[in-house]
């Protein structure tokens, strides 16, 4: 078969296909069968299943956890320092303190560092370096948390034990590991917020005789404020929810941490450590811990929505 005949064959095949498609579409409409409708239904069905799944999980956690909270009493459950589930005392006060201590310490260093990095990436780095750093941040975000925990266990804990004292298993170790883990969230979101600030603001500021640094601090950062706050809150949400790495490096004692070198147990750790053998009220108490975490995250998400809305109302353009 020479080239020419092949061409012709291909040509006829295309024509045939076209005809087939045409007749198919026509058949569709004459039968009153609407393909758009089918696609819409499939999409809606998926969305419905997604919503149902979320509702089911939330409902399940609440049903399993809430009765115990009411049985113990909300204040007692949250603030009691005695956690002895086999003896019937269910106070997660120490875990609440542990979560707050680890999260806030992590934010204390990760927020300034993340913000400084994102300012550098947008405002100072040559475009190629900025892109490269972006990929590195993505990479950082993709490392499984157990790897971070393992690194903490092998490197950070001995370091703390040798140079700062204590066993090394501590709030500080948790905060270092967690901080690294939330850096990508903080950097990515605040970088996008800073990059979205109209160039007009910067040029306008420079034209008034402001230095680059003054323009960043007084115009660009305030203009990106709502995005930066969102970055911090989402980072905080991620820190509160993180479990694996934290379990591995914080020591998990149910005590109120009296310094950043003392061991602590977070709410998430509490669930993962005891879920294997818990039953009855004990299991319900773990679900109740989940309820508290759930409410934390809902509140943080609400704050994010409010911040973004406020930013939209105030910001120009």
């Amino acid at each position, binding site marked *: 078969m020479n080239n020419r005949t092949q061409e012709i064959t291909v040509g006829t095949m295309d024509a045939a296909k076209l005809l087939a498609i045409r007749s198919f579409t026509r058949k569709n409409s004459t039968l009153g069968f609407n393909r758009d409708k089918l696609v819409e239904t499939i999409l809606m069905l998926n969305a419905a299943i997604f919503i149902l799944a979320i509702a089911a999980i939330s409902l399940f956690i609440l049903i399993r956890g809430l009765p115990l909270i009411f049985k113990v009493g909300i204040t007692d459950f949250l603030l009691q320092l005695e956690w002895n589930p086999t003896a019937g005392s269910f106070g997660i006060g120490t875990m609440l303190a542990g979560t707050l201590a680890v999260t806030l310490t992590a934010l204390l260093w990760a927020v300034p560092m993340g913000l400084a990095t994102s300012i550098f990436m947008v405002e100072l780095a040559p475009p190629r370096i900025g892109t490269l750093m972006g990929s590195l941040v993505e990479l950082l975000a993709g490392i499984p948390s157990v790897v971070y925990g393992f690194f903490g266990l092998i490197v950070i804990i001995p370091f703390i034990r040798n140079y700062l004292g204590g066993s090394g298993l501590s709030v500080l170790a948790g905060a270092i590991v967690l901080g690294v883990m939330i850096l990508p969230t903080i950097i990515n979101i605040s970088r996008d917020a800073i990059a979205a600030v109209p160039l007009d603001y910067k*040029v306008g500021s420079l034209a*008034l*005789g*402001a230095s680059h640094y003054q323009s960043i601090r007084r*115009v660009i950062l*305030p203009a990106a404020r709502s995005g930066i706050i969102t970055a911090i809150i989402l980072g905080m949400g991620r820190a509160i929810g993180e479990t694996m790495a934290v379990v591995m490096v914080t020591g998990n004692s149910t005590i109120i941490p009296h310094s950043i070198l003392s061991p602590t147990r977070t709410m998430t750790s509490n669930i993962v450590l005891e879920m294997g053998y818990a039953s009855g009220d004990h299991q319900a108490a773990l679900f109740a811990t989940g309820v508290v975490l759930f409410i934390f995250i809902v509140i943080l998400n609400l704050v994010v929505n409010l911040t973004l809305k406020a930013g939209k109302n105030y*910001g*120009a353009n």
Partner: protein
Amino acid sequence: MNPKIKIKTSDISVFYKDFQALHGINMDIQEHKVTALIGPSGCGKSTFLRSINRLNELIAGTVIRGQIYIDASPVYCKEMDVVALRKQVGMVFQKPSVFPMSIYENVAYGPRIHGIKNREQLDEIVENSLKAANLWGEVGERLNAPAAGLSGGQQQRLVIARVLAVEPQVILMDEPASALDPISTARLEELIGELKKNYTIVIVTHNMQQAARISDYTGFFLNGELVEFSATNELFVNPRDQRTEDYITGRFG
């Protein structure tokens, strides 16, 4: 009477990488006059304007040759403090770029970055600047409202107030009315007429009627060259160059 030359440009050429945007421009800009720069898009008039306050340097790969003198002192030299230059030469852009802050903070921004902290002094500067920009009557009662809530014309006058607050001697305007409606434009032109008593104004405009209405001198740019520069009346009534005549009579551009 010998009018004083405020800005003198001597053989200014600007290159963006391989492209030459300006070809050796010589221009004497008179103090307390409005000088309009006209010409079709891409003719180099904005580039020329931005070379006066050295804003072209923000674009990587820009090379500038020649010299500009303001009050006989060179702008392009190692000793030049760009911050001081931009304090002396204010700029208003095409799009009113108010900062996402209150009206008060927008005007106080310049004085603040230049070190004024005293609240009473700032209050005074803000009030005087807004008055000079014909905006005080409209916003004096709501200085703490977000600037983004003002109309386009008000925003542009706010930007002018912000420039006035740093007490410049020269104001560069890059098509300041192109985003405004006719009434706001008329108010802006009226303001420019008032400002020239105290400031030297250089304005880039697409609108030839506007140039004819508000300016004392007009320069016509084409393909990076200054084709003709003379008193506005003369340029519009008796253009010396055929290309100028073709442009102002609407034959191209």
